[in-house]
């Protein structure tokens, strides 16, 4: 028995010795490898990117990450940041887990421990808000390619720059679009009804719609809100819309409620001249693949659409290479984050003329901030349907815009507005349900 115990101890000690030696060798080799790499190559510029890489938005996070990675790959293979001696851009990832407090913690870690020159992210407006608060405090530029809550650029921040248009700009453009439609039918749109989900997003959008459309002289005949997580039937809502007889119906919905609403509208044969949706549920893959003919001829605001490649030669090139690499197409999310990284690149080139990040990191961050503030990128250098990138004093890109798409009878969305990007003429007014069943 005792002998047996001793043997066990011996074996354990032997295993431990082997393990320690193995780890030692691995560390030695590893460290040596790193040193060699750093010495043999030009310096790098570290950029922190915060995205929801895990958690309930992990699927979206994956898309956004691809956009960033692809842009960095292109920039680096074109010779890196030339004014910094061809320094390669290295992304240090921060995972927000789709939670505002994680976003802020990751921002702090990237700034303090990883010494990044700037932060990019963070998709959800709520996370962008907390993460950019940290950046503002540490005086680090925060570049936001993908959050649309209007309030983000109303905080008077000096280090915050947003590339994407926000919801307020989208709504203004929707008013222009409806005016444009109205001209085509001799002013047939007068009465507007709004139906929206009642979280912060839907409520905000509905408020903006009410304000901007009544300012443009339209009559808001009904505003209906509903609670998306608990909605089981839209029969009463649709009956009510039948009574208020709007010419145009504005909708802000998530996925399952959008599906239920459109199916109910079809079943109840509610007819309006046009339905204009605010992105979100209406452009999600689950909606597009399942709504069927109930979704035909519905307009939606978008930031990006597959058919833009026909109108934008620059996008066509990028899209082809992207498809080759990842096997999927660019979408509104990956395309915006891709654009974000390129915008940062142009600013990095400018900042590198003044100071190098490894000479004085904080000075470089200041130079980068100034470069962003003075930046102008013309539209033809971008893959987004924008007039370009130029930030106002609030840090908002004033040259961005959305597009309006319409689902046609093949179940696909086509760009119909603005005219310079349109691949189809809008079908307006919508054919009646009787005409459609023929």
């Amino acid at each position, binding site marked *: 028995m005792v002998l047996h115990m001793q043997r066990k101890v011996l074996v354990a000690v032997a295993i431990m010795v082997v393990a320690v030696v193995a780890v030692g060798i691995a560390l030695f080799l590893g460290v040596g490898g790193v040193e060699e790499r750093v010495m043999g190559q030009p310096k790098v510029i570290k950029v922190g990117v915060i995205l929801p890489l895990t958690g309930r938005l992990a699927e979206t996070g994956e898309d956004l990450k691809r956009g960033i990675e692809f842009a960095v790959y292109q920039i680096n293979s074109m010779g890196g940041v030339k004014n910094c001696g061809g320094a390669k851009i290295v992304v240090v990832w921060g995972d927000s887990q789709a939670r505002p407090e994680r976003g802020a913690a990751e921002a702090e870690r990237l700034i303090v421990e990883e010494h990044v020159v700037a932060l990019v992210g963070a998709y959800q407006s709520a996370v962008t808000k907390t993460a950019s608060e940290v950046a503002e405090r540490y005086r680090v530029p925060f570049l936001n390619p993908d959050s649309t809550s209007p309030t983000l650029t109303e905080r008077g921040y000096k280090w915050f720059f947003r590339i994407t248009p926000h919801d307020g700009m989208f709504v203004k453009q929707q008013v222009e679009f409806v005016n444009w439609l109205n001209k085509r039918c001799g002013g047939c749109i007068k009465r507007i009804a709004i139906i929206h989900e009642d979280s912060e997003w839907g409520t905000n959008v509905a408020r903006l719609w009410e304000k901007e459309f009544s300012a443009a002289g339209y009559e808001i005949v009904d505003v209906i809100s509903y609670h998306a997580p608990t909605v089981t039937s839209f029969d009463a809502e649709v009956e009510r819309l039948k009574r208020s007889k709007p010419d145009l119906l504005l909708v802000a919905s998530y996925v*399952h409620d959008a599906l239920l609403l459109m199916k109910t509208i079809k079943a109840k044969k509610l007819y309006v001249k046009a339905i204009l949706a605010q992105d979100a549920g209406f452009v999600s893959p689950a909606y597009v693949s399942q709504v069927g003919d109930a979704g035909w001829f519905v307009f939606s605001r978008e930031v990006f659409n597959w058919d833009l490649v026909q109108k934008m030669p620059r996008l066509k090139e990028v899209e082809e290479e992207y498809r080759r690499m990842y096997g999927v197409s660019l979408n509104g999310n990956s395309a915006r984050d891709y654009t974000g990284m390129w915008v940062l690149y142009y600013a990095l080139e400018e900042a590198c003329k003044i100071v190098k990040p490894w000479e004085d990191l904080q000075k470089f961050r200041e130079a980068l901030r100034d470069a962003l503030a003075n930046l102008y990128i013309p539209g033809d250098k971008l893959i987004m349907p924008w007039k370009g990138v130029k930030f106002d004093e609030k840090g908002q890109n004033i040259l961005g815009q959305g597009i309006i798409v319409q689902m046609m009878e093949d179940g696909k969305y086509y760009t119909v507005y603005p005219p310079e990007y349109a691949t189809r003429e809008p079908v307006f007014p919508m054919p009646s349900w009787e005409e459609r069943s023929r």
Partner: protein
Amino acid sequence: MDLTVLASAIVDGLLMGLVYGLVALGLALIWGVMNIINFAHGDYMVLGAYIAVLFSLLGVDAVYALPFAFAVVYLAGVATYKLVIRRILDAPFVSQIAATFALLLLIRYGVELVAGPRTWIVESVLSGSVVRVGPLSIVCSKLFAGIVSIAVFVVVYLFLTRTYTGLAVRAIAQNRSAAMLQGIDVDRVNSIVFGLGVGVAGLAGALVALVQPVFPELGGFYCLVAFVSVVLGGFTSVVGSFLGAIIIGLSESLSAVYISPTLKNAIAFTVFILVLLFRPTGLFGRFGRRV
């Protein structure tokens, strides 16, 4: 014109209420017989809904999914009883809550793991077509769901009142020890009751899938409605909870038309609070003792 709106609101409320009733019925049954509040009830319903989704994906009309939804969820319920519920029958109340809540999490996120967080629409011959009764247009699938709900309710009612097992169920509900002394195999009857309770909810889930899109968190609201219905109906009464659910459905749809769609849930629950203020034993408290 206004009469049409009223009639259509009543029809819609009634039909939704019948489906709510099917979910509530099982909750009341389990509560009444085992004195266990099944927090996972709505998620057993979702299991049934996903069986309809599966049928639809395989190209089979989802209407055929109904018996399978019942059978699969019934078996899942019996298994749950044997593995979990039997062990907590005499446990403290808090342990019972924790156990059924754990079941809720397991089912909800298990479904999400397998089917993903996406939303599914179930296609059927019934969806999209409409029955016209005078000026009213009623969506076929909803009408079907309502009719099936009534039929299932009648079957369950007959089972409880006209069969030997039903008699045993009621005996256990009244007094477990006495039932045991009479030679009733309480354990076996309990497993049938739990299977039946969640199985009917699973069937309701397949009906829900015919009338609205399906996603993993769908069960939460239905479970809430079921709780309210059960309380309205006098806590452990199967008939009362079914009627309670119809009241919820009606007050939802009527308030949506005459007050505001925004407030439809709030008003349904206000009715609930008012009823409890004036009849703390629920609307059908006394009637419920019997079934």
